[in-house]
C-alpha cells in the first residue's frame, strides 16, 4: 500500500449527515409526510390510460393494446422511449470506444482460452438453460403487446444467455457460433434503425397528402392515417409489435457486444498495450 491521505473529519461529517437524513426522513414518514402513499385510489391520468388503452368504443383515444404499460411506452409517451433508446445506444458506443483495440478488427481467443471452462455437468445444464432463456425471451418480445413484457425486458433477458455462455464455456463457445462483435454491432444498428424508421414512417407518409404525425400508431380524429391493429388471428397493436421486436434486437445485441468486449482476456490487452 502506498501513502494514503486520511480524511477522518469529512467522513465523520458525511456519516453523521447520512444518519441525520435517515432519522429525519423516518420521523417525517411516521408523522405522515408521504400521506401513507399506497392509497386506495390512483391519479386521474393513470385512470385515463387504463380506461382507454383497449377501449373499442372510444377508438380515438385507444392504443389497441391490452397492456397499458406497453401502450404507454410505445404510443402515449413514445417520444420518451425514443430518446431513452438513443441514450442506451450512446452508452454502449461509449463502452465500445473505451475498449477500442487498434489494428485488431475482431478478437479471437481460440489459442489462449482453448480447454478452459467449467465442468461437464455445468456445461450441459447451461446448454439447457440457454435454450430456455432464448425461447422465453423471444416469447416475451413477440407477446409484449399482449402480456407482461416488451422489447426492453426481452433484450435484457436474452443478454443473460450470452453471459451464461461466457461464464460456463468461455468466449470460444460464442466465437464458434459466429457470435462476434463484428456481427452483433450491425444487428444492433439495424434494430435502432428499425425503431427510427417506424417512428418516422407516419411522418413520411404525411408527405403524400394524408394527415398523420410522427410516431403515430392508431388513427385519430385529426389524423386519419394509422397502423392496422391486427392481421387475422395475430394481434399486432398497430406498430407496437414491431417496435418491441426492434427494441429486443437492439437491446439484446447491444448487451451481447458489451459482454463480448468485457470477456476479452487480459493477455490480449497486455500484448496490444505493450505492458
Amino acid at each position, binding site marked *: 500500500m502506498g501513502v494514503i491521505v486520511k480524511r477522518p473529519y469529512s467522513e465523520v461529517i458525511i456519516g453523521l449527515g447520512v444518519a441525520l437524513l435517515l432519522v429525519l426522513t423516518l420521523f417525517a414518514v411516521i408523522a405522515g409526510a408521504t400521506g401513507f402513499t399506497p392509497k386506495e385510489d390512483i391519479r386521474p391520468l393513470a385512470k385515463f390510460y387504463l380506461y382507454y388503452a383497449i377501449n373499442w368504443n372510444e377508438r380515438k383515444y385507444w392504443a389497441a393494446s391490452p397492456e397499458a404499460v406497453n401502450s404507454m*411506452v410505445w404510443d402515449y409517451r413514445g417520444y420518451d422511449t425514443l430518446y431513452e433508446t438513443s441514450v442506451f445506444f450512446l452508452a454502449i458506443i461509449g*463502452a465500445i470506444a473505451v475498449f477500442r483495440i487498434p489494428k485488431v478488427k475482431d478478437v479471437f481467443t481460440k489459442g489462449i482460452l482453448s480447454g478452459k471452462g467449467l465442468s461437464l455437468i455445468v456445461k450441459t445444464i447451461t446448454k439447457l438453460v440457454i435454450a430456455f432463456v432464448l425461447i422465453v425471451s423471444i416469447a416475451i418480445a413477440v407477446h409484449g403487446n399482449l402480456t407482461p413484457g416488451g422489447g426492453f425486458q426481452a433484450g435484457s433477458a436474452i443478454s443473460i444467455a450470452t453471459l451464461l455462455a461466457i461464464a460456463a464455456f468461455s468466449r470460444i463457445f460464442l466465437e464458434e457460433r459466429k457470435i462476434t462483435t463484428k456481427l452483433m454491432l450491425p444487428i444492433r444498428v439495424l434494430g435502432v434503425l428499425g425503431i427510427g424508421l417506424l417512428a418516422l414512417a407516419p411522418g413520411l407518409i404525411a408527405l403524400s397528402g394524408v394527415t398523420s404525425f410522427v410516431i403515430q400508431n392508431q388513427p385519430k380524429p385529426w389524423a386519419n392515417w394509422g397502423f392496422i391493429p391486427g392481421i387475422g388471428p395475430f394481434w399486432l397493436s398497430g406498430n407496437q409489435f414491431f417496435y418491441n421486436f426492434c427494441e429486443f434486437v437492439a437491446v439484446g445485441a447491444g448487451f451481447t457486444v458489451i459482454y463480448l468486449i*468485457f470477456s476479452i482476456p487480459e493477455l490480449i490487452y497486455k500484448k496490444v498495450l505493450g505492458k
Partner: protein
Amino acid sequence: MTSLISQALWIYFYITLIGLIAVSVYGIVVRPNLLKKIIALSILGDTANTFIIFLGFRRGGAAVPIFPSIKPTPEELLWFKETAVDPLPQCLVITAIVINMSVTAFLIALAIQLYRLYGTLDVRKAVRLRG
C-alpha cells in the same frame, strides 16, 4: 389489528428504502474503491426505481395494469380502471432499468481501463497520477 400490522409493514418498507439510500450514498461518497462506488450507484438506482413503482401502488385488490383479453366490455373496463395499479411509473422504470444497466456497463468499462493503465481502482491514488 390487521391494519396495525399492515401499517407496521409499510413503515418497515420505508425504513428499508431509506436505509438502502443511506447505504448507497455512503458507498458513493466515502468508499475510495471505484468498483464499490459503481455497486453503490446501482443500488441507488434500483432503490429509486423501487420507490417510483411503489408510488403507483394501490391498496386493496391491486391488479396488474394489463387487461387479460383484447375485447373487453365497458363494464370490465370500469372495473379494470378501479382495481389496476398505476401503469405510468412502471413505464418510466422499465426504460430506466435498461439505461441504468448500460450506463453501469460504461462505468465498468472506464474502471477496467483505469485499472489496466494505472494499476489501481483507488480514486485517492488515481487523482494523483499524471499521464
